[in-house]
């Protein structure tokens, strides 16, 4: 079987080794995109993200990847943002300082409110409540690690959520060809693999 390519945005943040291994396991070959000319046209794009929103945004901009992602998403290329990669799809984030995102889905990222039991960062496996028509997984437990959550202008784009203390946190979102997940599918066992497969097969 000829391997399909997937564009994996590689802008120098975090652990892309694990997500690339998950994609290879699903018989996709990773095309690491460091600059716009690396992109393979008409292939899906995954935007990972770890660390702080302003730093991720700065690095995307530095390599002119932000403009490319906006252009591709508007053209209809399927795009999946993971963790901060999902938050980057929003209009802006309030992490450290107000920073503009890619503006592909209306909304913003703000700090999770914490208490003595539900601490910040929110680290660990959480049960995701998915809209039935979207996903059906074995356990529905996914691995989260984040201090900021998104707030959507239009809740209809939310496809899954978790509750954490007083917070309702969007776990997965979808607006046409643009998809995002707050959890790490590459660290979420077999359900995570199936989430990625869902995006790749669609």
């Amino acid at each position: 079987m000829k391997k399909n390519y997937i564009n994996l945005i590689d802008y120098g943040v975090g652990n892309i080794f694990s997500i690339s291994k998950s994609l290879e396991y699903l018989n996709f070959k990773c095309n690491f995109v460091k600059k716009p000319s690396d992109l393979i046209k008409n292939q899906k794009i995954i935007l990972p993200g770890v660390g702080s929103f302003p730093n991720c945004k700065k690095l995307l901009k530095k390599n002119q990847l932000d403009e490319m992602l906006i252009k591709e998403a508007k053209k209809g290329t399927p795009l999946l943002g993971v963790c901060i990669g999902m938050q980057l799809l929003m209009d802006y984030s309030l992490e450290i300082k107000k920073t503009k995102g890619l503006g592909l889905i209306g909304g913003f990222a703000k700090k999770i409110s914490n208490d003595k039991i539900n601490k910040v960062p929110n680290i660990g496996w959480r049960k995701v409540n998915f809209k039935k028509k979207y996903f059906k997984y074995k356990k529905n437990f996914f691995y989260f690690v984040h201090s900021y959550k998104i707030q959507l202008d239009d809740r209809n784009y939310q496809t899954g959520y978790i509750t954490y203390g007083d917070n309702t946190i969007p776990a997965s979102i979808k607006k046409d060809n643009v998809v995002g997940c707050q959890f790490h599918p590459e660290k979420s066992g077999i359900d995570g693999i199936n989430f990625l497969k869902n995006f790749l097969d669609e």
Partner: protein
Amino acid sequence: MKKGKNFRFISRLDIKDQHVIKSINFEGLRKVGLAKDFALKYYNENIDEIFYIDAVSSLFNKKFVRNFLQMACEKIRVPVTVGGGIKNADQAKKILKSGADKIAINTAAVKSPDLLKKLSDLIGSQSVVSYIEAKKNESNKTWEVCINNGKENTGIDVMRWVEIVQKKGAGELLVTSVDKEGTEKGFENDLYSKLSKNVDVPMIASGGCGKIKDILEISKNICVDGIAISSVLHFDKLKINEIKKFFKNKNFNIRY
């Protein structure tokens, strides 16, 4: 959504070269098998996370990272934390690039607490675990911070130290009781009760797990978010699914 407490079960692998080792109170290392086999076994048995703690600080050795870490992370689709001998940001970045999600720091942070700040700015505080080895001082009933695998007592008060590491940006604490480590006689419950006043980030308890009732006892502490266990799993005294089933029935939010 039900309101039970979230709780994580982490397998702690103390490693030397390619082997998992086990000690009691950090003394007398004994090889129990290959690290990659253990990690894969626990992954298949539904463990929530894996902590590799390198007893001989070989982590910044290039060959180690390439031969061991990448292989160890490739098939494991749960979070991996790596600690032991990490001294600077470059080493931390390399370890994350090889598939780890978090790094754990003890000795280097004690020597220079600003390293935690530097790392959390660089890789995000969610990836920085402050690894703390706590030893009880029987004369004044406090706990003191040890470094170099429990060998060296710094005399720093653990209660004060946790405040510093949180201020410097540690996103999680792994607190091991040197006195209970490897004994299978129960967790150092008093230590974690006392810590709960000072800790606002997720805290993992380790050292002393022998029976399910030990886990039940420590899980009652609202400030403990999970446990890191080793010998009871290595020597087949407890099974991961057996522990998880027990806690699931106790209405905990756990991945089962």
